[in-house]
């Protein structure tokens, strides 16, 4: 019996495909998410919109709160560690969380180095803005990638930008001659073997979800039609007027993403969406996606 292998780590992400992973801050919210049809929950102390509003240092959640959420639902429970904070990740692994998100939403603990994710049995998901960043994280052992987007804004524009960037760079790789791959690996700042693998297969070797700014059923379906494998919704659900209805609607729009009549039906009477912040109104220093490299 081999535990913590690549297949087992990447395999759980395969099972989450076509699904919605929701940020929750209490056991009650976790139950609402599960009831709506979430494939997993992300346990955290404050959703990104509140982290943004409160300022200060954002850290790993209280283990007691994570355990309450684990006790409340049967679906996988994920939790966030700060970039480079491998002890937070060790703590989360000891709690038995199903996935660790090494997340730019929390305040980075190391501005130079990310966590050596190969050293863990628990799988990791990491954010990326472009192919080089995605392949660096996979090179460090990430078993799942998500776009960084711009968390806590309710503005989908950055998630779209990051996905289109990664997708475009993959397409470009597949049309290159073999001798062009080394200089491309240098330019991307990515491991050569992974660049070569993506050039051959035309796809990332791990599942790629959308995250950062998804607030409506149509946002989720937009990302699915662009080609992501599934979606994370952070502040978009529990900062909205009717979280249970919105959660259910986003789940259904993610499954029936190619059917505008279903997206129209589920988008009716959802109450107020989260109050958005236009990403273009944010100063560079207020953008979370720039954390990590």
């Amino acid at each position, binding site marked *: *019996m*081999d535990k913590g292998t690549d*297949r087992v780590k990447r395999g759980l992400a*395969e099972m989450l495909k*076509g*699904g919605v992973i929701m940020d929750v801050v209490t056991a009650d919210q976790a139950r609402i998410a599960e009831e709506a049809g979430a494939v997993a929950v992300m346990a955290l102390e404050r959703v990104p919109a509140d982290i943004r509003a409160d300022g200060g240092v954002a850290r790993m959640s209280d283990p007691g709160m994570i355990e309450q959420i684990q006790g409340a639902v049967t679906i*996988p429970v994920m939790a966030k560690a700060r970039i480079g904070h491998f002890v937070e990740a060790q703590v989360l692994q000891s709690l038995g969380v199903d996935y660790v998100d090494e997340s730019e939403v929390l305040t980075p603990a190391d501005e130079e180095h990310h966590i050596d994710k190969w050293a863990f049995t628990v799988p990791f998901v990491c954010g990326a803005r472009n192919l080089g960043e995605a392949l660096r994280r996979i090179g460090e052992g990430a078993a799942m990638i998500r776009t960084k987007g711009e968390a806590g804004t309710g503005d989908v524009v950055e998630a779209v930008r990051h996905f289109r960037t990664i997708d475009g760079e993959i397409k470009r790789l597949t049309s290159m001659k073999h001798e062009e791959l080394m200089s491309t690996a240098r330019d991307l700042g990515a491991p050569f073997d992974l660049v070569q693998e993506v050039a051959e297969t035309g796809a990332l070797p791990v599942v790629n979800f959308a995250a950062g700014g998804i607030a409506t059923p149509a946002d989720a379906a937009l990302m699915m039609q662009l080609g992501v494998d599934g979606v994370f919704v952070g502040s978009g659900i529990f900062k909205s007027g009717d979280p249970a209805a919105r959660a259910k609607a986003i789940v259904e729009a993610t499954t029936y993403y190619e059917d505008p009549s279903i997206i129209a039906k589920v988008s009716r009477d959802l109450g107020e969406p989260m109050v958005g912040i236009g990403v273009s109104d944010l100063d560079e220093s207020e953008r979370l996606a720039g954390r990590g490299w």
Partner: protein
Amino acid sequence: MRVGVLALQGDFREHAGLLTRMGHTPVLIRRTEELDGIDALVIPGGESTTIGKLADRYGLLEPLRAVIGNGLPTLGTCAGLIFLAAGTTGPTQVQLGVLDVVVERNAFGRQVDSFESELDVAGFAEPLHAVFIRAPIVEKVGGDVEVLAAVDGDPVMVRQGHIVATSFHPELLGETRVHELMLGS
């Protein structure tokens, strides 16, 4: 053969890809009318609670029970096994109840306890390499159900006539024998 693959959530594309490589035509199923004209059905891995809720909300439960009840060869992997089963040892969830077993979900523990290993399967000449991800086991088996493989005495692959179900994921490794077994039944 035209093989339906329930595509509400989960790794349905891996099943569809494997079926294509085996020379079959996969048909993704999200609506009842898409069940027309299929020769077999696969219910993929994923989150069983999500798949159950979507099937319920979109009116797929009775049509699925009808076609499987009429003898359509059916394979369920992991979440698919749970969805086909008659009950779980945990909280109540939406299930088809066409396979006479009770399952224990996440029976091996959380994700850190997920594993891969060689598995002997009754009737297969060579062992199969199996990946178990937050996998269920079969806890109680009805009279017409054969156990084809077990881990530490707990059933992880069963067959009830035309229905085959596994706790593990042959679709992740390109393993074709489980699909062949189902299609031949």
